């Protein structure tokens, strides 16, 4: 198929960017979206132009590196997939596809479609851990029984890949789903209880400091999240924060 691509080009963090149109032809429907981008880049290199910078690594939906806003949706129109898992069969011959970086004040653009998500790092550093020494002299793993239900639920929260699609698709650029998922994972496990109070306070404080918007429960994040992280995680974080303060 033949496609018109409208892509955000921005030289570096300081430059002003703009949308630029490109044409790609003979795209196979079996290609992944990023393979289509590879074709475009190869074409640009051969024409002596600068290829489009975009983040990607695992290309199998697990590293959370890829981050494109495609036709007005984070990771494109399909549900439960990352950009790298999106395939061209989701588009039609002759389509115009708009591709933009994830946008949020807390995710400044580095170049073209690449954004800086280090705000997520700092939130995790503020408390996204359990303070145990890595000495290996902890108690036997089976000394802490955990109900299957709690373990499974914690696992569901822990599957967040930190991609930032929740922020990108939220009209308020709020990071609540991401932070909620991390807070939830520990809140659901007995190991996480000891530091629960400080953890939620510190992580939320850091989240606010980073300039993310505030949740208004629109639910866009849940719909666009490639890993199906549910709004329940946000509700749980709200409870945890109230508990921590009362």
């Amino acid at each position, binding site marked *: 198929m033949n496609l018109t691509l409208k892509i955000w080009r921005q030289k570096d963090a300081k430059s002003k960017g703009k949308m630029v149109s490109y044409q790609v032809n003979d795209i196979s429907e079996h290609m992944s979206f990023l393979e289509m981008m590879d074709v475009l880049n190869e074409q640009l290199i051969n024409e002596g132009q600068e290829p489009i910078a975009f983040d990607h690594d695992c290309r199998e939906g697990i590293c959370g590196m890829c981050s494109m806003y495609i036709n007005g949706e984070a990771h494109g129109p399909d549900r439960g997939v990352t950009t790298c898992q999106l395939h061209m069969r989701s588009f039609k011959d002759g389509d115009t596809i708009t591709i933009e970086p994830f946008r949020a004040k807390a995710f400044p653009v580095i170049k073209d479609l690449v954004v800086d998500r280090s705000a997520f790092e700092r939130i995790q550093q503020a408390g996204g851990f359990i303070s145990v020494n890595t000495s290996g002299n902890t108690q036997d793993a089976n000394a802490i029984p955990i109900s299957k239900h709690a373990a499974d639920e914690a696992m569901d929260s822990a599957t967040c890949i930190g991609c930032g699609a929740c922020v990108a698709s939220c009209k308020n650029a709020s990071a609540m789903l991401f932070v909620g998922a991390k807070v939830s994972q520990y809140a659901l496990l007995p190991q996480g209880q000891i530091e629960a109070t400080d953890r939620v306070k510190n992580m939320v404080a850091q989240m606010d400091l980073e300039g993310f*918007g505030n949740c*208004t429960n629109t639910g*866009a994040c849940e719909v666009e999240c490639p890993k199906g992280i549910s709004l329940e995680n946000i509700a749980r974080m*709200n409870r945890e924060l109230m508990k921590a303060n009362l």
Partner: protein
Amino acid sequence: MSGLFKSSIGRKVAMALSAIFLMIFLLQHFAINILSVFSADRFNDVSHFMGTNFFVQFLLQPVLIFGVVFHFVMGFMLEIRNRNARTISYAKNNGSANTTWMSRNMIWSGLAILAFIVLHFIDFWIPEINTKYIQGDVSGLLPDGNFRYFEELQHKFENPIRVGAYVVAFVFLALHLLHGFASTFQSMGAGSMRRAKLQAFGKAYAIIIPLGFIFIALFHYFNH
């Protein structure tokens, strides 16, 4: 505790608390107004009680006013913060793919309600205050010896433009609540088990109450 309300989540909780208060008030307000459809006397009695009871007038009323002001001021602050969180907007954004219109436009439905509230103050509240506390007439009576409340109510709903404005305002209120009700409980951390039920109840509330108010307005418009 004070730390809570410095955080974004804490403010949301405060917002939700004010909203819950407003929704309870709305229910009470509706309960009184609907009386006007069934019995002018009952309506007059209750209105007089509400209008002259010390507790209602000097405790609940200020709290209500504070609640409303708090709610929309917080709403504005929230909106400003949220707009600032994305400095460059998307060239193409497909919001309807993942959210409802109501959830994306709380500020607009809210502003419509605010406009209504202003109108409502001019219509009822300012004349009330004028009569009771400036002219000092707390009898609640008309010159003919009957209670004035029902009369005044009917009188207001003679003007089709005003009735139209009321109807539109309540449509916005319905839209505001269609998202707002469930949102409140999510903000308060209601778990998913409860949330499903709350959502259903919320939808019912958000439609029935405003519809009721619209019914009252139309009823009086056609029955005077």
